[in-house]
């Protein structure tokens, strides 16, 4: 986290095309048929995007009899928080009836270090690929991008053996390493594109002043990369928080993440399924990435604009 904190500086003044003003034809002052079509389309898609969230939240506040009545649109007759409490504190998996809360803290334990390590390494990669290219560096990068297409299942077995040889299987270190590995392709792509879009003169001037690899990285590159760090941060926090497979296999039983507990609760069918508890658990599990996304939405979009555009 320290890197993110130190780079406090403003967004790079030189970010190309940083303009966020809409282009295209100027708006006309009146409601024209075209405008109505435009807004109608946008509203239609918005409903499609909002509908599941609405259903999730509304269902989680209902009681089971009301759910069985079968109207997913209806607001709850009487708002009850029981499902939420049950999902958080007492839903059962096997003999353990602690709800999602232990999983929440495990996910925090996994997500924070994994995010920091993976972003730092990917940033260094991107920087080296742009400013310190060496023979073969682009080949490594190409293979890395190619690697992002390989199904994870392929790596599962050998990675179990590798982490066993390192003596870290079933620990936080293992899951951090795995997340760093699989976050690397897309993050490196982002950082590489972003650093490539910065004016090369800055780097050259620093070289002339005698600054070395790390000094340029920490003193020049990092302070200019706030937007892309935000993008990387969001991608990693959501990606790692939402991960199921690596958490369940590599983190060890005492560190099982929240998604695993969600799956356990939803698929444990103790008696008749409690859809309200399932939905509450689902919303709770999605809450952290959602909050992070809502809080940083604007920065995220600006970062994407700055980073992903250059090819």
């Amino acid at each position, binding site marked *: 986290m320290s890197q993110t904190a130190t780079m406090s500086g403003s967004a790079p003044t030189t970010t190309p095309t940083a303009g966020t003003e809409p282009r295209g034809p100027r708006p006309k002052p009146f409601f024209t048929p075209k405008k109505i079509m435009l807004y109608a389309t946008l509203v239609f898609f918005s409903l499609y995007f909002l509908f599941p969230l609405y259903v999730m939240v509304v269902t989680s506040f209902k009681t089971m009899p009301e759910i069985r009545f079968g109207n997913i649109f209806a607001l709850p007759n009487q708002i009850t928080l029981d499902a939420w409490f049950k999902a958080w504190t007492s839903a059962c998996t096997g*003999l353990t009836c602690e709800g999602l809360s232990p999983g929440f803290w495990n996910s925090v334990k996994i997500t924070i270090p994994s995010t920091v390590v993976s972003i730092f390494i990917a940033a260094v990669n991107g920087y080296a690929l742009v400013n310190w290219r060496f023979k073969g560096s682009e080949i490594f990068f190409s293979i890395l991008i190619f690697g992002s297409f390989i199904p994870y299942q392929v790596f599962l077995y050998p990675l179990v053996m590798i982490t066993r040889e390192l003596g870290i299987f*079933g620990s936080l270190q293992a899951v951090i390493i795995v997340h760093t590995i699989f976050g690397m392709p897309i993050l490196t792509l982002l950082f590489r594109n972003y650093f490539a879009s910065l004016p090369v003169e800055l780097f050259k001037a620093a070289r002339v002043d005698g600054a070395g690899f790390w000094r340029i990285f920490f003193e020049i590159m990092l302070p200019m990369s706030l937007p892309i760090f935000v993008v990387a941060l969001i991608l990693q926090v959501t990606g790692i928080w939402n991960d199921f497979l690596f958490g369940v296999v590599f983190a060890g*039983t005492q560190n099982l993440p929240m998604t695993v507990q969600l799956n356990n609760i939803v698929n*444990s069918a103790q*008696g008749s399924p409690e859809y309200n508890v399932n939905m509450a658990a689902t919303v709770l599990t999605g809450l952290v990435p959602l909050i992070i996304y809502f809080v940083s939405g604007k920065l995220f979009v600006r970062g994407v604009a700055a980073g992903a555009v250059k090819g």
Partner: protein
Amino acid sequence: MKKFAVVAAMATAFLGSTSAYAVDLEVTHWWTSAGEAAAIAEFAKVFEEETGNNWVDSALAGSGTGANPVIISRIIGGDPMGATQMNTGRDAEELIQAGLMRDLTDVVADMDLDSFYVDQSLLEACRYEGGLYCLPINIHSWDWLWLSTAAYEEIGQPVPTNWDEYVASWPALEEAGILPFGLATGWPISGVPGVLMSGIGGSDLVLAVNRDKSADAVRGPEFREVAEAMDSLRKVISPDMMVPSFGDVGNQLLTGEAAGNIHGDWLQGDLQVAGGVPGEDYECLPALGMGDQLTGGGDSFYFPVLPEGTDPAVIQAQADLARLLISPEAQLKFNLVKGSMPIRTDIDLSAANPCMQKALGLLENGLLPSGDFALSSDTQQQLQDLNIEFLDDDNITVDDYIERYASIIEQAD
């Protein structure tokens, strides 16, 4: 958990238990349905009471895709649990061969297993090169036709007493808007052919296919009847009526929404938890009411070899648990809740419900090897894929089905 451990440790200190201090023993399993969880709680209770140690419960939903990969990768990855449940049979045979499982021969040496195990074939699955690497803790059988009393009351017919009567009742049921056969999505269909095989095809067919892996038997006339029964079954099942889990089918039976279901005896655990009373709310027909033997497999407990430097008290706890699991007291409590049959012959099962009593009667005729007992998990997976596909795709004819079944059995090892 931490707090609980401390409290438990203090409690045992006051009670002056056998061990000097309480240790944690992690037990993995995939028993997450209501009935299953209630059953495993019986084991946990006995273990904690008898030894003063802590049962650390690691339940993972979903046997094949959820729990199995985690259990196997943890054992291979050198982070083994204290004990784990798996199916009796061949799922763990390579882990045993690789020396990753603890040899229990000495642990149970003085218990004289041969004298009380109900069927020696169960123990055979655990033996390898003179060692004993697992303990079967129950016998499960798929061979049950479950029928809903409520559904038959509604159409005003008596509850069928065998498969043929059941099939004959389908038109009336459909007319009344009742599902003739309730089914959950995914693996539950995979057990059905085996049940039809023993009920309609007979014991010889089961032995020829499951034990001897004879493709000729699959191509024979007896198996054709089985395939045709599957064919008629798929005509009354439609995907949009399928429910997510087998526990839901249990509820359908109790409410009369569905009239029947073929499913393993563990369904009974869920029926009981939901308040169902055998003979009143539901009827059970072992071997479809036609055969005189049950096919069976069951669950076993395995005790992985723990890494060097493990607290000897934990290794002792493994041994204590192993002995307790097959003790008369634990066997009785566990199996009554689980709906499965105990592996001991020497316990009083008068408390068992009528369904289990019927099963015990059939058990005396010897146990037939079920598919999940005698076939490798690879073959089971292939058969499951075939059954799921056949059920849903009417373009696959009975002949195709037989031929594909035969070729899978042909390649089975």
